[in-house]
């Protein structure tokens, strides 16, 4: 299904990072909804195939950072690039898969898992209809996340974990190179959370770049390769193994960091 991804991943490991643009490149980015900046002087570069988690306390600017790098917000200063293109002008929607926190759960919209996952093909087909090949990709994506027997279920009848799997399948159906997840496990039961991280890991192993905004520090340390700790500015950016021992955790979160839960932005 995603043969070109594997090629990309192979190239990414063999070529030097200078020869191809980073997936995400933020340079001196500052942004505020009012005169007070929510994020300030952020510089981050994420290369193809990385598994990165952004952590930070409530109101630390995590979701704002995500919106900036996806081009949904324009920086007040600095530059944000996605696949080497200015993020706000980036229009190759198929390359980015986005999974929101509790996406679509507030509505009683009658829509099946298959109908949600087909949306991943929309950037490819434009105004056209999905071809038989597109539907095969959709069904394959549903199968990959282990939801085949739920394909014709209404999404509102599913548990939180199942629903998030459907959204990941949507990103897979789009053959996304970059998967951006905004606190995807909020409201998801523990068992499903474990399965969910297992799925992310197998996708990462295939070469997909994973960017996870997460409040659950334990999960981040266990699963992500690289951690960016944010609280308006970057307190830590490095391998997750080093994060727990760093002073950044306590500085960014204050004391009692381990018990932090919930919230975004």
């Amino acid at each position: 299904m995603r043969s070109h991804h594997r090629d990309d991943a192979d190239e990414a490991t063999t070529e030097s990072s200078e020869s191809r643009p980073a997936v995400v490149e933020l340079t001196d980015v500052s942004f505020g909804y009012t005169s007070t900046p929510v994020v300030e002087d952020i510089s981050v570069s994420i290369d193809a195939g990385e598994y990165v988690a952004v952590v930070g306390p409530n109101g630390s600017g995590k979701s704002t950072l995500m919106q900036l790098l996806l081009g949904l917000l324009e920086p007040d200063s600095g530059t944000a690039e996605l696949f080497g293109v200015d993020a706000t002008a980036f229009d190759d929607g198929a390359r980015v898969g986005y999974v929101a926190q509790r996406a679509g759960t507030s509505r009683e919209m009658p829509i099946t898992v298959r109908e949600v996952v087909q949306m991943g093909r929309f950037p490819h087909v434009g105004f056209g209809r999905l071809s038989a090949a597109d539907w095969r990709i959709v069904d394959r994506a549903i199968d990959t996340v282990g939801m085949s027997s739920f394909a014709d279920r209404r999404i509102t009848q599913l548990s939180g974990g199942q629903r998030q799997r459907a959204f990941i399948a949507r990103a897979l159906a789009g053959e996304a190179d970059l998967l951006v997840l905004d606190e995807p496990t909020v409201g998801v039961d523990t068992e499903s959370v474990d399965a969910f991280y297992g799925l992310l890991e197998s996708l990462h192993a295939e070469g997909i770049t994973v960017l996870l905004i997460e409040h659950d520090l334990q999960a981040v340390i266990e699963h992500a390769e690289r951690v960016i700790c944010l609280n308006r500015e970057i307190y830590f950016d490095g391998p997750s193994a080093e994060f727990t021992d760093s002073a950044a955790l306590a500085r960014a979160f204050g004391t009692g960091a381990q018990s932090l839960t919930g919230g975004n932005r």
Partner: protein
Amino acid sequence: MTLAFAAGGVYEAFLPILEVWYWLLALLYQLTGLDLINPEYTFMYRAILVGLCVGVIAPLIGTFLVHRQLALIGDALAHTAFAGVAVGLFLNAVLELSVSPYLTAVVVAVIAALLIELISEATDAYNDVSMAIVLSTGFALGTVLISLNAGGLAVGINQYLFGNLSTVSAENAVIMLGLFSVIVGTVALTRNQLLYVTFDETAAAVAGIPVVWYNRIMVMLTALVVVGAMQIMGVILVAAMLVVPVAGATQVSRSFSESLLVSIVLAELAVLLGIGISYYAGATAGGVIVLVAVGIYVLSVFAGKVRQTGAPDETRELDTISQD
């Protein structure tokens, strides 16, 4: 003037469809002897045609509105369409023009729709207050213009407020066919984008869909539906057709495509039963249609409950994750 000229062209283009429709219903009358479609009352032929069109376009657009929790936008636009009717009547009286009030209603409602959308873009939310202001301004403007018109006598105002089967002229039927083509054509073309934006606006934006433009298209289509449906539903009840059949379909449908289809079937049922009942009982069609639609909605709620209890329970079991 250009408007009237363009309308003339459209009228000519759609007239043959109307002729075929007359012929079909006359044939049906010969087969069934149903008094409702007696060829002596061709106004009923036109009313049924307009009703059937409403039964398609209202739930079609309503499905997208309801699932974005924008059900009330139809009400706001209906009241501004009323202002548009008043503008048409006023211009005809003062400048001695002969523009159809439905055409001026289209123009004013589309402008109001864009205004609502622009306000929501500026304030980053569809807010009740701005919607209420647009709604009352539209209605106030309409009542003032109509009171100034014709020496203060609001001639024929009831047909716009409550709708009227007998006043559906050939011209109005043709306007409806034009609106129907534009609405169905636009939704057929942009179905993918409208669905994505309706379901998950942020993900749609990330997927490269210009969300702002599709929101504008959606409110403009709503304005067109409202004006089209106003002829038989009236300003006050027109929004019901956008919402009630969709609410009913939501109860019994498993998928989005199914809910689109079911909402249209429910709306057509309400329209045909409503027109039939109102014809024989001598009651106002708009009101009867809405009452029938609400009755169908109540039945759908029960049907939905029955279906739910028969459905398999939610399970948390997952298939194994394939390693691709």
